[in-house]
């Protein structure tokens, strides 16, 4: 009778019911949503702060340059004595004092008690520049309206030439998606691979294992554990994705941060040219992202992601299970952990370079070799920089490699779980592989 489902169920339920799982599930998306929302949030908070600026205009010609806005109000001082004026400013509690002493010169002084805000300085500079520019236009007889109408805004639309014709593409977005995929796969292999190892050690330390393997085959026990924990990982991943979406959505609605166009809008946008879009969005960068999202090959990406996510996890989890079976406690795992984690870390570090050069020989080899392909291949697929035969080879090798590691791990596992009080060496492991 096949008992894997029974084992799988226990492994899954005991982990999902843990408090730490619940906490991670809630805290994870909050952190992720915070990362996405925080920059916009901070920008908004700053905008809301009201500031008053004192202005001393000796020339009396700048009055029209400063209109009060929602956040900044201007107040003109008339005191001509410099020292008295400074005292008046200090008493007023205003944020800063701009002093204009010369007629139409480019030299201005901004007094404040603390170093003035970059933004305030920027705004004052802009106002003065615009004011002085307009004066110059008038002096030189240039019509402002004519000048404005001559201005252009340019948006470059990248297009790739494929067998099916040309396609709109965006360079930044696939790169970001590929890199995020690599981070997620790397993180989950590590987190849940180590969980498999801990689970095996727990059974060994609690001495449950001998009772268990008088009822089930060691292979079934290992397989049930690995698959059960894989499902925990997928559950966690899905919950994170959904919750992050919900949190970002709700927060956006409440605070009116319409950073992403809604879905109905997307279909409308699809029928417009990029020029029209430019007009609507008023920002060519957002238009680029929207076009990228619409034209990105989601099917290929999601399929590849899921396959390499699962394949990479199974490959590494079986190795982690073997390590767990060979030791008596977690501190002894160090010597075996190193060779297992090195390729994983290497792949992750290399991914950052491969993003810049996805067709290079480093990218090719790392996306073929099974120990690094789970992280590198999704990056290349996201960027659309791969050949079909490369993908097929990579998938084939990963399947082969994971069957081989499961087989090897099962042999080590079978001997290891009943071995106590023995410091295991690589030589010893080699012997175990040859046991019946």
């Amino acid at each position, binding site marked *: 009778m096949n008992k894997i489902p*029974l*084992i799988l169920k226990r492994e899954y339920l005991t982990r999902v019911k843990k408090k730490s799982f619940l906490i991670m599930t809630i805290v994870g998306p909050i952190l992720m949503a915070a990362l996405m929302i925080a920059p916009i949030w901070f920008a908004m908070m700053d905008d809301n702060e009201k500031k008053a600026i004192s202005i001393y205009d000796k020339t009396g010609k700048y009055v029209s340059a400063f209109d009060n806005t929602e956040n900044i109000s201007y107040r003109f001082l008339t005191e001509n004595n410099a020292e008295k004026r400074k005292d008046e400013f200090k008493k007023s509690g205003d944020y800063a004092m701009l002093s204009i002493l010369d007629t139409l010169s480019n030299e201005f002084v901004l007094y404040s008690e603390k170093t003035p805000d970059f933004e305030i300085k920027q705004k004052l500079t802009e106002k003065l520049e615009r004011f002085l520019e307009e004066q110059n236009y008038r002096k030189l007889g240039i019509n402002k309206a004519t000048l404005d109408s001559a201005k252009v805004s340019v948006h470059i639309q990248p297009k790739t030439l494929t067998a099916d014709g040309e396609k709109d593409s965006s360079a930044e977005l696939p790169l970001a998606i590929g890199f995020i995929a690599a981070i997620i796969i790397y993180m989950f292999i590590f987190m849940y691979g180590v969980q498999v190892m801990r689970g095996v050690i727990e059974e060994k330390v*609690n*001495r*449950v294992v*001998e009772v268990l393997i*008088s*009822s089930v085959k060691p292979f079934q026990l290992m397989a049930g554990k690995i698959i059960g924990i894989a499902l925990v990982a997928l559950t966690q991943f899905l919950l994170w994705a959904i919750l992050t979406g919900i949190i970002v959505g709700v927060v956006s609605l409440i605070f009116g941060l319409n950073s992403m166009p809604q879905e109905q809008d997307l279909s409308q946008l699809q029928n417009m040219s990029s020029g029209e879009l430019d007009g609507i969005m008023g920002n060519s960068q957002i238009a680029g992202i929207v076009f990228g999202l619409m034209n990105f090959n989601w099917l290929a990406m999601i399929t590849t992601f899921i396959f390499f996510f699962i394949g990479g996890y199974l490959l590494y989890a079986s190795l982690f299970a073997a390590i767990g079976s060979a030791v008596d406690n977690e501190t002894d795992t160090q010597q075996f952990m190193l060779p297992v984690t090195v390729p994983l870390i290497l792949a992750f570090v290399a991914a950052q370079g491969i993003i810049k050069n996805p067709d290079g020989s480093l990218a090719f080899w790392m996306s073929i070799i099974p120990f690094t392909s789970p992280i590198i291949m999704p990056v290349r697929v996201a960027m659309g920089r791969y050949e079909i035969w490369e993908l097929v080879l990579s998938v084939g090798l990963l399947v082969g490699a994971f069957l081989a590691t499961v087989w090897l791990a099962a042999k080590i596992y079978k001997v290891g779980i*009943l071995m106590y009080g023995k410091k295991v060496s690589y030589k010893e492991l080699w012997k175990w592989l040859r046991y019946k």
Partner: protein
Amino acid sequence: MEILKTQKVVKQFENHRALSEVSISVEEGTVFGLLGPNGAGKTTLIRIINQITAPDSGEVFLFNEKLKPEHIKDIGYLPEERGLYKKMKVGEQAMYFAQLKGMTKNDAKAKLKSLFEKFEVNEWWNKKVEELSKGMQQKVQFITTIVHQPKLLIFDEPFSGFDPINADVLKNEILALKKNGASIIFSTHNMASVEEVCDNIALINKSNKILDGKVADIKNQFKSNVFEIIFDGNFNKFEASLSADYEIVENAQVNATSILKVKILNDLSTNDLLSRMLQFGKVISFNEVVPSMHDIFIKAVNGN
């Protein structure tokens, strides 16, 4: 009828031989003691019967069939190295083990409830294992071993960790299981319990079986013709009358009473000794000294 038979089972590890051609046979409805010093190979043999490891050569038969994976549900095994998942609830855990042995969910629940009732551990069902004392955990473990009503039970040091009261409860349960038709293999170093529960034994030393048979037969085999006598009379005259066929092994005097151990060296009958003593006084008691399993164990292992 024979329920289990091993035939010339051999298991060789890297540096030592764990079992060399060990053959044992367990009769249905009996308690079979598997004895031997530490490291003799008992656990290896038990693991082979449980199909945890495979023998290098030799065969194992259960119900006259060669051992196969389906037999797992017919065996209940309480290993010496045992434990439970600390963070899991007692009831859930017992259900898990029962289902791993092939019971359906409903059967497992019904049977477990009645066993929990019987062992008076009902209120632990929803407790986590780590909240229980070591002895309580042993009780739960015992229940999970017998819940699927296996025909063959294997207990490796079942009494370790039990207080005398619970050890007695356990012993009675083992005897009750036997009465209900289960066959039991019982491995222990506690020789007193062997005498109380075992019908047959096998003694393994350094990978070889050195002794087996019915407990009563083995005891007879190890008898040394020594008699313990309590005697009220003239010891000196009695001693002087003894021929070379007798040897006084021990002699203690309390007032006029002598407590003696006398060995009959030749094939003489006990009646001869008795009638000789009656000439010099009154015999209060006269018993043959039967060797304990403890003595037999030490004698057999050292003599091997």
